[in-house]
């Protein structure tokens, strides 16, 4: 039994960093899983290079995984780590500037060779020159102790043994933060079921790491973070991409439609293709298309046939799909387009996050081509937004663009599982009967005769007798759908298509404002993945007595009906975005409200501390009153 001191903490931010081949993402995932099962609230931020294996030991090759867990509600992966696990000098150098003084650093001393040090420009080891004095450094020979612990595995090469160092590190951290390792052991058993040697080696290294923590004098204290108070229910940990995939499957099930995904691999969206490709038993069809255009084309073809057509992509792919989305606008068929945004323009920053496709989603097509646009706020909200996108697409027979991003896609958080039977009923009814009569009184089908409430046209799928009709990208006559070049008809149809999209606002929830004191003069309004950092910043500002209101948009086209009213109710409106002010431009244009942009395009989510300062400054300038000191 351990006789060491156990200290209670309310929150911890850990960052695992190593070479991109060191298994840091896996280590982070497993630690997250252990933490989730323990009942802490959490949020994660993987950060990795676009190169699969950048040159070993170099700064561009550093891969990291940050996890924030607490005994209370967590909104972001944390601004700054309390603990850095650095598997090599590059990982230390790349992450040191993010580390507040006094933070803990666990370094793998085995990798601090002259050669590795010089690769990143260290002439003297930072472990020896006193430059790390302001931090709490635990030098551990992670690799050699891990290898030593595997001495009995004579059939494994040294290289194979070295690869278990991440499990040793995970074991050590699991001890340090009192995490159970049973889940990881079960995971390894399933992963290496047919490689018993490798399995045993990994289990041994994991336990060795745990035991090392317990016995070594270098670690005198271990920590506990009590479970967070969360709503009753069953939870799992989920990333945005997995939640989005599950949302599409659940929504297709609720709609009674087969799900067809046409997709071309692209970072950071590919995981959705991978996830859905594994769900054939739920009737999901996935097609890896020859290009982005074929992906969306096949999806639209499937929709024409009565399936739920979906395509997934990132910004460069959305650009390629534009013409087909325009066709879907003209055909007025359901289509869900998921854009998992990344840094742009062009190839940009494939593995980093950004929100700069908003205007592309709204306007990136020829002609007046309105589509619905929605954006999830958190990783688990990707599930709900997928259901909402399918609801809009099928109800209004329109393309819907979902704007997720790299931060939500790869980040994770606990998700309280919904009940499938309690999801919205979005059952689709196809047209089965003629809906008009011709000049002679014979029944005919008018493919563009609209539902008076939604302005949606009937969805008549091939195979339905008597409803044979042709659709196309050429302008159609109102009601009959025949080709029409008539000027008045084009004007009418253009306005009808716009009115249909505008009308979606009737069925979406009004924008709700969180303003606990009810007398805030400053509103912070965000959209999409900035929800967590903004909410955390608002929490920080309020804790120091600042009165600030917060609202967050999930619907970007159309906006909730009360958006203008909300904006006009405040002295100042701050709009933080990970672009150069795209939502701000839309709000100014539509509502003539002088909103203020606060922007950052660093490929990383906002830091809540930074946003809290922005909020505080804005409130101070409005109130002209000295801020009260926080009572807590």
């Amino acid at each position, binding site marked *: 039994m351990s006789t060491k001191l156990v200290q209670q903490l309310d929150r911890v931010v850990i960052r695992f960093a190593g070479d991109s081949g060191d298994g840091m993402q896996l280590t982070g995932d497993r630690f997250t*899983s252990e933490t*989730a*099962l323990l*009942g802490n609230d959490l949020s994660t931020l993987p950060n990795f290079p676009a190169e699969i294996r950048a040159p070993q030991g170099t700064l561009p090759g550093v891969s990291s995984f940050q996890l924030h867990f607490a005994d209370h509600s967590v909104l972001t992966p944390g601004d700054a780590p309390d603990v850095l696990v650095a598997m090599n000098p590059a990982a230390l150098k790349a992450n040191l500037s993010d580390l507040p003084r006094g933070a803990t650093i666990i370094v793998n001393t085995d990798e601090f060779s002259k050669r590795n040090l010089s690769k990143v420009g260290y002439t003297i080891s930072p472990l020896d020159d006193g430059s790390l004095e302001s931090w709490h450094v635990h030098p551990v020979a992670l690799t050699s102790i891990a290898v030593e612990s595997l001495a009995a595995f004579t059939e494994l090469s040294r290289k194979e043994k070295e690869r278990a160092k991440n499990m040793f590190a995970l074991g050590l951290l699991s001890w340090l933060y009192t995490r159970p390792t049973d*889940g990881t052991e079960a995971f390894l058993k399933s992963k290496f079921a047919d490689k018993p040697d490798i399995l045993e080696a990994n289990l041994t290294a994991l336990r060795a790491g745990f035991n090392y923590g317990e016995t070594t004098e270098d670690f005198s204290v271990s920590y506990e973070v009590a*479970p967070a108070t*969360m*709503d*009753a*229910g*069953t*939870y*799992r940990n989920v990333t945005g991409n997995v939640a989005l995939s*599950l949302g599409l*499957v*659940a929504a297709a*099930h609720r709609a009674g439609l*087969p799900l*067809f995904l046409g997709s071309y691999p692209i970072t950071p969206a590919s995981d959705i293709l991978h996830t859905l490709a594994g*769900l054939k*038993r*739920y*009737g*999901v*069809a996935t*097609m890896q*298309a*020859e290009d982005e*255009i*074929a992906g969306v*084309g*096949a999806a*639209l*073809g*499937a929709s*024409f*046939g*009565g*399936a739920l*057509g979906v395509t997934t992509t990132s910004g460069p792919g959305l650009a390629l799909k534009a013409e*087909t989305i325009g*066709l879907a606008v003209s*055909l007025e068929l359901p289509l869900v387009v998921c854009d998992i945004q990344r840094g742009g323009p062009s190839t940009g920053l494939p593995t980093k996050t950004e929100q700069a496709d908003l205007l592309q989603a709204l306007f990136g097509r020829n002609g007046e081509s309105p589509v619905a646009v929605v954006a999830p706020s958190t990783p688990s909200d990707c599930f709900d937004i997928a259901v909402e996108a399918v609801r809009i697409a099928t109800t209004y027979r329109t393309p819907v663009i979902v704007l997720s991003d790299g931060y939500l896609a790869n980040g994770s958080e606990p998700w309280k*599982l919904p*009940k*499938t*039977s309690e999801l919205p009923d979005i059952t689709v009814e196809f047209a089965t009967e003629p809906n008009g009569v011709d000049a002679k009184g014979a029944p005919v089908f008018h493919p563009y005769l609209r539902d008076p409430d939604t302005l949606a046209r009937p969805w008549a799928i*091939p*195979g*339905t*007798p*008597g409803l*044979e009709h*042709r*659709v*196309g*990208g*050429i302008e159609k006559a109102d009601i009959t759908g*025949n*080709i029409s070049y008539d000027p008045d008809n084009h004007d009418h149809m253009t306005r009808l298509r716009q009115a249909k999209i505008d009308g979606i606002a009737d069925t979406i929830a009004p924008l709700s404002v969180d303003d606990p004191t009810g007398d805030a003069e400053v509103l912070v309004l965000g959209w999409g993945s900035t929800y967590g950092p903004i909410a955390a910043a608002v929490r920080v500002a309020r804790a120091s007595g600042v009165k600030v209101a917060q609202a967050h948009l999930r619907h970007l086209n159309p906006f909730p009906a009360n958006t203008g009213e909300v904006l006009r109710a405040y002295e100042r409106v701050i709009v933080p975005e990970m672009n150069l002010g795209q939502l701000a431009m839309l709000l100014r244009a539509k509502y003539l409200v002088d909103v203020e942009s606060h922007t950052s395009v660093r490929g990383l989510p906002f830091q809540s501390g930074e946003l809290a300062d922005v909020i505080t400054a804005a409130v101070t300038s409005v109130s002209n009153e000295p801020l009260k000191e926080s009572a807590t």
Partner: protein
Amino acid sequence: MTTELGMPLRSPDAHGTAGINSLTGTAGVPRLGDDVTLTKRDFTSDQEVRWCPGCGDYVILAAVQGFLPELGLKRENIVFVSGIGCSSRFPYYLDTYGMHSIHGRAPAIATGLASTRPDLSVWVITGDGDALSIGGNHLIHALRRNVNLKILLFNNEIYGLTKGQYSPTSHVGQVTKSSPLGSVDRPFNPVSLALGAEATFVARTMDSDRQHLTGVLRAAAEHRGSALVEIYQNCPIFNDGVFDVLKDRTEAAARILHLVDGEQVGAGENVVVRDDRGLLSFVPRAEADPTRIVVHDPGADDPSAAFALSRLDSPDLGHVPMGVFRDVQRPTYDDGLREQIAASRTGTVTDADIDALLAGRDTWTVGA
């Protein structure tokens, strides 16, 4: 019995491949009752046909409308998908389901439709610009995947709808609006391209020979998988008469190589012989070594012979093979996709199944 161009009137199950795959192209598509027959009129929509007077598209449309009743399929289970170009207006004139889509993308759109709807007979209408230029990528991948689509490529060797620019099948030196000094682009041979793209069915026919055209359509319809049918089609406005030598009875007899399963390949007094290196040449029948005369075998697994035949084509239409170059059975993409799904399914998906999917393997419960 064969047509004027040598096309067998009944699509042969005599390829030696019959029985390997009992599925025909329309297997799974609901058929009309025995007491119901449709006519050309049933397939004619109420839309005014708006091609230029004398356009080859008219005769192709009439041939297709006349042929479709023969399939015996329910009209509502037939879909025509087209891209952009003169020929792509085709779906508007057929009283079936149809989609006039965007430039070059019809094969991709039709792939999504055919993959999700095994009960449909899906036809793609495209042209030389649509299929071979802007949509080249989708064409080759549809053929490679062997999706159960019938692709009719109207080749008039010119851009018509954009008013007369050279196309990817225009010949070198062709003077057009965009090549006033003659085109320096080398053309594609659509049949060679399709064979190179692993197509399982490739044929060529001509707008003016309705019987041959119908015979090729029939063979294409019966083929399960992608069928590419190149149709020489006259554009009377921008490239008039480009195929005229093939329409003159005497010239045609000397120039057209009738590809008939099991028959020697030749035209007029000449036959095609294969040398030791496998190369083909055109020699007078009297001089040919009978053991070297090429006997057509569209069912040959190896596409080399079909490819060699496709290369006999010459820009001056000196000798033009017509008919079915290749017709082999290979599993189709759409059948394969559906089979994987069917094999994975364990019954109707219930709310409880979805609940279990959402939960995954690692859950924890927080008490009230």
